[in-house]
């Protein structure tokens, strides 16, 4: 049926990809990444935002090689399988704002959908509220799609447009190599490094980069998407992507059990707070933004590696959103939400609804 047999996009393939990603994520924690944060696309982009000085929250500054690996892995995979297609022009400015809002919401919860799953797999009960919020946010997104919401068609672009994000990521890698971390020093050349806090906890460069690339390839081939998993379940009752979501949870859970990383409870969980309402509503806003933009933060990087400029704009929006989030006191900490976090959730929701209602295609044949 399919022109090229793509095993990883099959029912069994997506499960295998999910399990593999879950195992690798849990191992990244074992090898140095912060607790329940083997992979967190939002947190890692936030750390990159800090590493290049867009915000100065000194505990979350590190140029995470996993993100570089995700994009370049997807880029290589797309090239190998003839799926690299430069495209763009589907309301990029709205996508930038959605990326900012998604990051702001995620940082109220303290994690993206990927980390919400990993937090569950590590026994963090607070993540239940995050996942519930994510499902409600994505559910609201499906109502918009049912009502004719669209950001319009993308168009084929020149090759130069498709390689911008991969080149930016190569630039990040070059910076990371030219300005390596100096033990105990918060700065190396032009890059900022955390000497304490989550930003100081990381696996070795090569491990992070290689695992990132493997995940990028697996996800590009399997079309793995944590938001799409819930969206397709709610919108179409399709279990395909959701089976990958559950597989990631199980893969990480089993490794956590084996290596002693499973600690069930609500209080004292790593990089988490216990304000359930804000865990729920932060993720609701993020989930709605991801849904309106058509992909979870991971999927947006993988698509940008495939040449999708609109996804690339969303990724840049997330990095900018992280800067705003930390500069303006919107992001949470283990002590609870930031001083302006509640306003951020309200304005984020308003922004999503505004974009949703103003991009309706009311004329149908």
């Amino acid at each position, binding site marked *: 049926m399919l022109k090229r047999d793509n095993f990883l996009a099959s029912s069994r393939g997506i499960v295998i990809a999910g399990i593999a990603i879950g195992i690798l994520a849990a191992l990244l924690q074992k090898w140095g990444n912060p607790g329940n944060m083997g992979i967190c696309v939002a947190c890692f982009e936030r750390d990159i935002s800090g590493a290049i000085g867009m915000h100065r929250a000194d505990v979350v500054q590190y140029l995470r090689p996993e993100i570089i690996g995700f994009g370049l892995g997807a880029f290589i995979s797309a090239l190998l399988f003839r799926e690299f297609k430069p*495209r763009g022009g589907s309301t990029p400015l709205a996508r930038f704002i959605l990326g900012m809002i998604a990051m702001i919401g995620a940082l109220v919860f303290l994690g993206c959908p990927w980390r919400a799953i990993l937090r569950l797999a590590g026994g963090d009960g607070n993540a239940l509220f995050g996942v519930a919020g994510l499902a409600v946010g994505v559910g609201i997104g499906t109502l918009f799609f049912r009502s004719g919401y669209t950001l319009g068609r993308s168009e084929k672009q020149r090759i130069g447009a498709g390689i911008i994000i991969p080149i930016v990521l190569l630039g990040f890698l070059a910076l990371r190599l030219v300005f390596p971390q100096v033990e105990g020093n918060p700065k190396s050349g032009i890059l900022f490094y955390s000497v304490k806090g989550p930003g100081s906890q990381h696996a070795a460069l090569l491990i992070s980069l290689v695992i990132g690339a493997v995940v990028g390839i697996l996800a590009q081939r399997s079309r793995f998407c944590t938001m799409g998993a819930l969206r397709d379940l709610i919108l179409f009752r399709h279990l395909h992507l959701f089976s990958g979501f559950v597989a990631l949870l199980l893969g990480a859970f089993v490794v956590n059990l084996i290596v002693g990383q499973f600690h069930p409870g609500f209080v004292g969980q790593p990089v988490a707070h216990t304000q359930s309402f804000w865990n729920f509503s932060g993720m609701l806003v993020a989930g709605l933004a991801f849904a309106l933009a058509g992909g979870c933060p991971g999927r947006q990087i993988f698509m940008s590696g495939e040449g999708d400029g609109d996804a690339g704009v969303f990724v840049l929006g997330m990095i900018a959103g992280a800067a705003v989030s930390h500069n303006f006191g919107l992001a949470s900490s283990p002590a609870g939400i930031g001083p302006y976090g509640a306003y951020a959730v309200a304005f984020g929701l308003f922004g999503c609804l505004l974009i949703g209602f103003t991009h309706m295609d009311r004329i149908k044949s």
Partner: protein
Amino acid sequence: MTVGYMEMKDTVDARGLSCPQPVLLTISKLKKTNSKEIEVIVDNDVSKENVCRAATSQGWMVDNVLEETDQYKIHIRKV
């Protein structure tokens, strides 16, 4: 008149649309059509896979997928 996306009779043009719109349009067409066969045009592999999967789940059959320059034409038939 076309705004955002275009639907011709028994053809769904989902080129340039991102998830979940190609599947949404396809399922909507499958439910509305009186025809026994429809054609869905997409421009990327992900949409092709999703549309094929959705058609099968709706009890239709994917007859064939024609690869053309920068697009696929998916022919779906009622079982």
